């Protein structure tokens, strides 16, 4: 048991700091700034602790908690993206007078929940992690409690997400009933002889997972929640829970449901195609930049799921690369959204960006890079993300999925370059308010450099990812 604690050092450290921050925040007034800074410092420390754990594929607590390359990679990805989200959204949080110390702490709790989701090798642990994460996200969505739309977003998210959690839990209990265990390996062994009960369970679980990553047809909450929540929270929603959701998706499909590939493959192909098409078509007419990125993230989840739906090893690895590049692109995108402030107010209307390239050439150029990357135009990183996905999709012979996927990239390219058009081709309006924020500019520059220099050595992550093994 002592050994198990040793393996859990990152999680324990994270929980202890959460408790410390809560107590500190309660007893000291106006401690937002301090706790925010401390949170930003905590994240790299946790990354260091995870990297420091030198072990290979350990399962602790009766095989319910898996520590492998996959979970470490995903955790680090979660931490890095949260780090960027935190450093770039601080200014925004202060500007909308939302500087409550709970905000960074709740984010940390959500991250802790995601850690358990990513590492879970057991239905119960998985569900606990998922709920810890979801409850924190409900609070985050409505953290701007004086704002009607934020509260609405929180309630909406809560009601729908609770429903999907219910379905998921129902699926878990069915799965337990039909396979006799909550452990993923045991389930995987017992699920082999097809019976209708396990398939029901699998479908319920898929519904829940699809909801969490906002894949069609369970995407309805996404645009409203993205639009209603404060932008800082939206940026968190668009990146971090998606990483955890996709990680869990991969874990489920490749571990307990590994042997019933034929049953879930077509469901995933459908989800993937539907997400790609809906995300591409519905975003065309959006005027609000947050709604647009919501639909864009739906279609990106479609591509990520396309990788999983192959059921092959190269498939899920391409999904991991995809989600990594997706995070980098969204960091850049939201860093720009945080710059959109004019006469004291943050703006969200795309048309307000008109002619921004004249007043802010560098920022506009950065968003240009991010947008073309989101559209998947070479030589930017977004192209390689799609390239890896379609490599594995075509390897599995799923030509229809590949053709539909690539044709929808053309449709989605339309709305990305529409923003480019507004920025570069339209006549200029008043410039944004200028302010100093190393966090925002740093994230923007990081994202752009990453996206535009990725082509020089696109196999940079292949070494790490090739080590990942789920089975």
């Amino acid at each position, binding site marked *: 048991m002592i050994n198990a604690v040793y393996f859990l050092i990152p999680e324990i450290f994270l929980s202890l700091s959460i408790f410390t921050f809560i107590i500190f925040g309660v007893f000291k007034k106006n401690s937002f700034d301090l706790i925010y800074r401390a949170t930003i410092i905590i994240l790299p420390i946790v990354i260091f602790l995870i990297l420091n754990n030198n072990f290979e594929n350990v399962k602790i607590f009766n095989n319910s908690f898996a520590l492998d390359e996959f979970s470490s990679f995903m955790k680090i990805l979660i931490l890095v993206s949260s780090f960027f989200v935190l450093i770039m959204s601080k200014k925004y949080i202060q500007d909308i007078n939302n500087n409550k110390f709970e905000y960074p702490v709740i984010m940390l709790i959500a991250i802790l929940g995601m850690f358990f989701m990513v590492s879970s090798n057991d239905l119960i642990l998985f569900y606990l992690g998922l709920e810890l994460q979801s409850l924190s996200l409900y609070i985050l969505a409505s953290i701007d409690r004086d704002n009607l739309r934020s509260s609405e977003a929180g309630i909406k998210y809560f009601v729908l997400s609770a429903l999907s959690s219910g379905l998921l839990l129902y699926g878990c209990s069915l799965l337990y009933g039909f396979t006799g265990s909550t452990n993923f390996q045991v389930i995987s062994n017992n699920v082999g002889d097809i019976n209708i009960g396990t398939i029901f369970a699998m479908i319920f679980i898929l519904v829940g997972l699809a909801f969490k990553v906002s894949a069609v047809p369970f995407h309805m909450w996404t645009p409203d929640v993205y639009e209603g929540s404060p932008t800082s929270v939206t940026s968190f929603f668009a990146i971090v829970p998606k990483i955890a959701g996709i990680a869990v998706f991969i874990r489920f499909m490749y571990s307990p449901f590994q042997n019933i590939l034929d049953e879930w493959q077509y469901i995933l192909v459908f989800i993937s195609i539907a997400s790609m098409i809906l995300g591409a078509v519905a975003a065309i007419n959006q005027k609000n930049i947050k709604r647009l990125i919501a639909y864009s993230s739906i279609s990106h989840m479609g591509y990520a799921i396309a990788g999983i739906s192959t059921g092959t090893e190269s498939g899920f690895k391409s999904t991991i690369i995809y989600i990594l590049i997706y995070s980098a692109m969204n960091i850049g995108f939201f860093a720009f959204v945080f710059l959109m402030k004019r006469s004291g107010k943050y703006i969200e209307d795309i048309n307000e960006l008109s002619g921004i390239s004249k007043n802010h050439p560098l920022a506009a150029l950065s968003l240009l890079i991010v947008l073309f990357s989101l559209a998947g135009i070479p030589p930017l990183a977004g*192209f390689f993300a799609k390239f890896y996905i379609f*490599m594995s999709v075509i390897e599995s012979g799923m030509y229809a999925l590949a053709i539909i996927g690539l044709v929808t990239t053309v449709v989605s390219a339309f709305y990305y370059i529409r923003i480019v058009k507004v920025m570069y081709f339209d006549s200029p309006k008043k410039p944004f308010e200028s302010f100093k924020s190393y966090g925002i500019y740093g994230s923007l520059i990081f994202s752009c450099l990453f996206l535009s220099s990725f082509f020089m050595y696109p196999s940079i992550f292949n070494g790490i990812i090739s080590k990942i093994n789920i089975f």
Partner: protein
Amino acid sequence: MNFPILSSITFLPLIGAFFVFLSKSESNQVNKGAIYVSLFTSFANFFLVLFLWYSFDNTSSNFQFVEESVWISGFIKFKFGIDGISILFILLTAFIIPICVISCINSIKNRLKEFLIAILVLETFMIGVFCSLDLVIFYLFFEAGLIPMFLIIGIWGGPRRVYSAFKFFLFTLLGSVLMLIAIISIYWITGTTDVTEIYKIKIPSEFQNLLWLAFFSSFAVKMPMWPVHTWLPDAHVEAPTAGSVILAAILLKMAGYGFLRFSVGMFPLASEYFTPLVFTLSVIAIIYTSLVALMQDDMKKLIAYSSVAHMGYVTLGIFTFNKQGIEGGIIQMFSHGLISAALFLCVGVLYDRAHSRLINNYGGVVNILPKYSFILMIFVLGTLGLPGTSGFVGEFLVLVGAFKVNFLVAILASVGVVLAAAYILWLYKRVIFGKLENNQIKEMKDLNKSEMGVLVSIGILVIFFGFYPEPLFNTVNVSVDNLINNYNMEINKFSVLK
């Protein structure tokens, strides 16, 4: 020789663009630093390419100056290399870009620095297309060119620039995604995306037709062939002069190059199978777009349609699969690159002075601009393929090649020559001769030094290659022979199997 000359000529403009980016921009003022840097890089690159041409071995059909390095470990190598066909296009690119830089210094009034960056970045992508020997690298450069061109049309274009830019971007992207699927499929069929390897491995005949169609969808849009040519007139009309020049002179040639290198090279059986399709589309393009060109009242649109017609000769020539046809197609592309670039520059000269591209607004220009009228004459004659200009060599060879293969097609294509003479001479008559009615024209000044230098240098080349096309033939000869031999070998092998 270990010096990576191909990478140097490819990425030198990118480095230049970076320095232009760093140069201080004084708002609304001419940015001297940016101009000097971009002139220097583009000329330096041109001389490097000349040196490359000089040290190129005409007698070998192998790929030369090959560079290889690991790119995506385990999958794809970064591979550069050229043969006689690609070096001509690299030469053309490196020649056209300095001309664009010179011409845009005078005509681009706002955001000159960004424009220069876009052109230099575009040069990198275009040379990359012609250098790459790996399908994925090729696709990368082929597609990447969309971004700067989209911005060039959209930012510096005319009144309907947004529509044209979007049309250009989406048309080309839609064509290319199918090619990406084909490239990935080729990887899984043959286990490599290295073109030279694929030439050796040979793609199984049952896959060839579909893959050929996927590549065709991309190249046909880019070429452009009828009926997917409609983006080109829009893009040409709205693009700034330098943008039109690049578009006509080089971007269209990427598709012709793609046909030679990939469609014919990798899928000989499918190429033979689809020859009737290509012939039909080419003949329609030649006749139909020539007729459409007759009816245009916008000069740029007229030249754009004539480009479509001329590209029809190129596809026709390539798919005759004999030496005359293919070499004719290549020379036609080269000469069209020079002539159409010059024509767009000539229209740009008028547009900069009178701010109109409508033919009706002109007339009697010869009285005011005699030098201009004389130089325009050379290019007009080049367009209609008068013997003694480079336009004649290409067209003539293509028609010779076509007569060997299909009499009817050749006859129909010859009609296009007559039509070309009709529309371009009529244009010349309406613009240059006639009564001087528009008062705006009376105040125009004749060519200045830089315009003169640019147009005369192109004109000399057009006439030189018209009388003495030998250097071009020497360069492509062995490579074309090699291409045809491989093609015939495959076809014979297959017919024996049958």
